[in-house]
């Protein structure tokens, strides 16, 4: 049976990988498909013992596929997200491109880094403490990139569902294989993503991000304002309705 064979080889893959973090739903590993090849990231939605096995496998399958679809849709529309490397829905594993870099939350230096030490952005903590200067980018430019990327995603009618500064990364310039040393902002974790054309859903997405900024970064108003500015510019005429809805929501 193909399914069993697939799970056996993915189990072997998991065994050879290093666990980076564990969230509520999945374990995240660093791995590579061949020894010595480029690293990839494995997101393993492990079986939940409390759930009925049938229900568990149906849910896991649909979520793995859902996330992969959202990523592919983003990629097709030119939104910067990690590339999909492989999907094993039976074992609940999604393999995606490894992004060498830091989360925006880390780069903005939230005042309470110790508070969320276990939420996954603490890999390689001891050596090379990166800073914004390392990435040759200013805070303002960074916020610009964030706004533009979210706008691109919304123009493709994709709703992220969990926009926080921990779910965006800036890839390190030296990690890009082409010679142009440009930093790239990458949106990650599409576990709650879905497609929608509704103004409401897009406004809620922005509102969630605003709340995330407020709760993790002290004095974040000017930061979020410049995110919105960039978003506005990229969205063009679509902004009017979303902006109004965002204001109504408050």
């Amino acid at each position, binding site marked *: 049976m193909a399914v069993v064979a697939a799970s056996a080889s993915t189990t072997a893959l998991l065994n050879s990988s290093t666990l980076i973090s564990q969230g509520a739903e999945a374990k995240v590993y660093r791995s590579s498909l061949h020894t010595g090849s480029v690293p990839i990231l494995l997101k393993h939605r492990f079986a939940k*013992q409390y759930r009925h096995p049938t229900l568990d496998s149906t849910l896991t399958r649909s979520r793995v596929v859902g996330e992969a679809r959202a990523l592919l849709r983003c990629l097709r529309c030119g939104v910067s997200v990690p590339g999909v490397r492989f999907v094993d829905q039976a074992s609940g594993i999604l393999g995606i491109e490894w992004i060498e870099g830091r989360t925006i939350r880390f780069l903005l230096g939230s005042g309470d880094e110790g508070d969320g030490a276990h939420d996954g952005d603490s890999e390689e903590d001891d050596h090379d403490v990166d800073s914004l200067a390392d990435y040759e980018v200013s805070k303002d430019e960074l916020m610009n990139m964030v706004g533009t990327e979210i706008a691109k995603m919304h123009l493709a009618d994709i709703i992220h569902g969990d926009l926080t500064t921990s779910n965006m990364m800036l890839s390190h310039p030296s990690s890009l294989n082409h010679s142009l040393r440009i930093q790239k902002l990458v949106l990650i974790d599409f576990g709650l993503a879905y497609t929608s054309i509704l103004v409401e859903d897009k406004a809620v997405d922005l509102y969630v991000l605003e709340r995330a900024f407020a709760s993790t970064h002290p004095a974040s108003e000017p930061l979020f304002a410049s995110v919105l500015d960039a978003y506005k510019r990229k969205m063009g005429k679509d902004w009017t309705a979303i902006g109004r809805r965002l204001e109504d929501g408050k």
Partner: protein
Amino acid sequence: MPKRTHESPLKSTDRPYLALGLEGSANKLGAGIIRHEVDGSSTVLSNVRHTYITPPGEGFLPRDTAVHHRQWALKVIEDAVTISSVSMHDLDCICYTKGPGMGAPLQSVALVARTLSLLFNKPLVGVNHCVGHIEMGREITGAQNPVVLYVSGGNTQIIAYSRQCYRIFGETLDIAVGNCLDRFARVINLSNDPSPGFNIEQAAKKGKRLVPLPYSTKGMDVSLSGILTATEALTYDKRYRPNDSPRNGDDEDCFTSADLCFSLQETVFAMLVEITERAMAHIGSKEVLLVGGVGSNVRLQEMMGTMAEERGGKVFATDERFCIDNGIMIAQAGLLSYRMGFQTPIKMSTCTQRYRTDEVHVAWRA
């Protein structure tokens, strides 16, 4: 608890405190007397309850429930006082449910509380029903700072304490989980005695087949009304066998009412456990406290236990005496706020159908 170990704002006392609690926000009328001892422990002196039970297939209407409460109030309170063997004159305060709940039953009980307060010249304390559940759960289980899953016929919330407030992290977007189960029990004509939810639980034990139902969690929220509709619709399906009729050889692809109860429970409980786990991961807590009528469901406790174990945590739950609405929890929460100097003047002793958990100032916790 890790990190924060502030002094409790509750002052130690030189004498025991006594409170009577009256509860009647839904179809249960409860009266209970609690004593807070000098050493900080508390004793449940009595906990009496009478439930308004309707015929199978029917829910309880506010007006009839209020009539029930009025008819039983004296008997229930009298029993509570007799069992506790304290006198009404020894009480420090009389606590009643201010809300949330059904208007008419709430008003009947508030009226009784006001009358007693005037008769015996005792201060009144209005209590938030949800906070009552949480405080009683904490008292009985000894859980210090848990994530609370409050699941009952009228409420479904995930709550955690932060800065003198029980913050709501997730909740139902439409109907409560108890409402969902009870209404399905009525669809398949299960008895309302002792409660429809209990009978669903018993029927589910006989169920074997998991019938696919919608599964809708949104972040830390859940939506349940669609699942109820879907399950109801399945009772009109041609594969449905209402009376658990024997399956012969060619009757493979069928399901019974027990299967539907089983599937409904498995699906909605899985959703609840999932959002609770999300909240635990978000907050960084390892304790879960289950309160509310549905919290006495053993299957839910079991599922929650498995999840907590996987995370290296622990689940705290109580049995039906304290899970299902009761007077003693109102006495407990009321006495805590009374000891912090809170009283409800008779002019303000109203009730309200809408009273959110996070509106309460939790003065008695650090």
